[in-house]
């Protein structure tokens, strides 16, 4: 009953982590996940407060208030720079 959370680019390097699992019962929205992750320690707190992060659920870009459910794949990443 978890939500898979993945990180990319600068964010992944800053956290030195590419993926975590979050218990689905503890979060309702993307914003909740961000708050929960920021509480992990001071470093994560800093990273999550300083960056203008984008988020996606199951490969679709979504806003912070979007709800999440068990089995979802949530992603956080900095603004994209392809092309």
């Amino acid at each position, binding site marked *: 009953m978890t939500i898979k959370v*993945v990180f*990319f*680019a*600068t964010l992944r*390097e800053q956290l030195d982590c590419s993926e975590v699992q979050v218990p689905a019962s503890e979060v309702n929205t993307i914003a909740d996940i961000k708050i929960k992750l920021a509480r992990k320690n001071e470093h994560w707190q800093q990273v999550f407060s300083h960056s203008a992060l984008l988020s*996606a659920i199951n*490969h*679709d*870009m979504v806003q912070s208030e979007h709800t999440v459910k068990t089995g979802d794949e949530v*992603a956080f*990443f*900095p*603004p*994209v*720079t*392809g*092309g």
Partner: protein
Amino acid sequence: MNNTSVKISIQTQDFNLQDEVDLLEQDNAVDGAVVTFTGRVRNKNEGLTVSGLYLEHYSGMTEKSLAKIIAQAQQRWQIGRVSVIHRIGQLAIGDQIVFVGVTSMHRQDAFAAAEFIMDYLKVQAPFWKKELTEQGEKWLDAKQSDNKQAQQWNN
């Protein structure tokens, strides 16, 4: 490929423009116009000399995001086939990074759709560039001008 086929490819290897355009036009004698955009690695960015580029992406979301952008272009303009290729991994100066090709019976539609796809790819498709510069490795910052450019299509 039928006349409205879409090709989306995320790949480490290079591509050949003539081959890609031939594929877009193969058995497609209806569409007389083909517009392409090719992006290449530049040697300078924001005043720094660049010696190479590393491209990361979010596999799965990239393809879905590009498919959505192409579907929007198909709704807005009368276009035939579309091909989007984006390279990932390590690239050198002058290397081709991205290809967008659009066929149409009408050149205006091909031009508009190709530009639209590039503009949205820039702000929605999950790719990230890390430049190797004289001052070391550096993740690129997104440009505000790219957001403005994409928003112009809503006017």
